């Protein structure tokens, strides 16, 4: 029997790891969307949520490092699979097309590497803007905390580049998940000819709900929503 490391780096092991890390990342972004939607809650809901997260202290750092590791493993395996394609087929077909039917070849599945790489770059910018960006402070329950909400509203209401850039990237996230969620089911060994159609539909629904949920907020703010509640002036 292979060792755990050999198994994890084998062809099947890589796929299982991609599925596993993918499921983890989807659960994370569902959680993340929950935080984003706090912008529609009580005026201080979003900042309170941020304060609660920061109160976890060292545990938050454990979660952050864990999340980063999962993200990098997922990206690394995905990119390496994509790079191996050429090696496995040095001479490409002059003509190639899908046979349809049960095939899951689509714009979504054929662009996994592209959408994945864009999301990887996006995440770097995203962390730089919202986690490392300059923030004012506000008082909540008499304690000073970051005014995340003001930063979010300031960023999206003042820059078409940010608002539309974010919204567009979230469309790519939807495309990535369109194939990704279904693929994770198969990678984690969920078989069954009948359940396959259900799994694909579930994947598509998750992809659409998450993409729409995420892209709605920057566009909503850009077109003037949320300004009345903001501490800063919308332009």
């Amino acid at each position, binding site marked *: 029997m292979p060792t755990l490391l050999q198994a994890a780096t084998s062809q099947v092991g890589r796929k299982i790891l991609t599925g596993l890390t993918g499921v983890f990342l989807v659960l994370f972004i569902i959680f993340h969307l929950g935080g984003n939607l706090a912008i529609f809650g009580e005026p201080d809901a979003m900042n309170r949520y941020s304060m609660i997260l920061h109160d976890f202290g060292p545990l938050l750092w454990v979660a952050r490092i864990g999340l980063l590791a999962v993200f990098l493993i997922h990206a690394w395996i995905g990119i390496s699979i994509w790079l191996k*394609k050429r090696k496995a*087929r040095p001479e490409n077909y*002059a003509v190639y097309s899908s*046979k349809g039917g*049960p095939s899951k070849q689509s714009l979504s599945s054929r662009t996994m590497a592209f959408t994945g790489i864009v999301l990887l770059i996006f995440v770097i910018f995203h962390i730089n803007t919202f986690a490392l960006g300059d923030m004012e402070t506000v008082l909540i329950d008499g304690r000073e905390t970051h005014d995340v909400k003001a930063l979010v509203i300031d960023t999206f209401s003042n820059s078409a580049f940010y608002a539309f850039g974010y919204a567009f990237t979230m469309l790519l996230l939807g495309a990535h998940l369109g194939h990704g969620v279904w693929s994770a089911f198969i990678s984690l*060994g969920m078989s069954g000819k009948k359940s396959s159609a259900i799994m694909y539909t579930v994947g598509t629904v998750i992809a659409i709900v998450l993409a729409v949920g995420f892209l709605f907020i920057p566009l909503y703010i850009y077109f003037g929503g949320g300004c009345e509640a903001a501490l800063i002036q919308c332009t």
Partner: protein
Amino acid sequence: MSTMTINLKIWRQKNTEAKGEFQVYKLNDVNEHMSFLEMLDVLNENLIKEGKDPVEFDYDCREGICGSCNLVVNGRAHGPKRLTAVCQLHMRTYSDGDTIVIEPPRAAAFPVIKDLVVDRSAFDRIIEAGGYVSVKTGAAPEANLIPVQEEVANQAFDYATCIGCGACVAACPNSSASLFTASKLAHLNRLPQGKPEREKRTVAMVQQMEAEGFGDCSNYAECEAVCPVGISISSIAEMRKNYLKAIF
């Protein structure tokens, strides 16, 4: 009975090392009732009469059961029809004046021997790695000695129908042999005779598949779409499940 003119663009390659290229042929009086391979036979007769080298292509039974033929026709393994080996494809599928591009299955693990013929012995080595049951066979045992549930027997038979043609590899954007390997595993692993070696077999065949230079599976399911016997990618999910069980 109507006849038609077909334009062919066929990959010609002298040997494994040689650089291949497309050559264009025009074939008149193609009968709509000809099979695709019979159409190629006619082309080759013409080429031989002209003193030219005929186009090499693989075939044996021409009944869709042996898995020898494996041409990529207009970018699709075994041509446009689902659940049909290219030997069972007929020219009535095409119209007068059509251009048909014929290529060999393209994969590093399937080196071209000549023209459209590729070396598929990588599949044999995957089978050698574990695609068998290690029991003393002796004389045929009494049929009902080992009871097998009907559902299990049916599923095993579905997976056993894999004819090893390699269309799955040909059509996979990553040139993965996962469907072939998984169908053999799904066939043997679920039967009482194959169960004792399930974990060892799964790991060994997966290792061999990778060693042969086949690509990674990305769950495109194109393999299932081109498979002439319709093997489901559920087998691939099952292979991963059994692999996990073997490791833990």
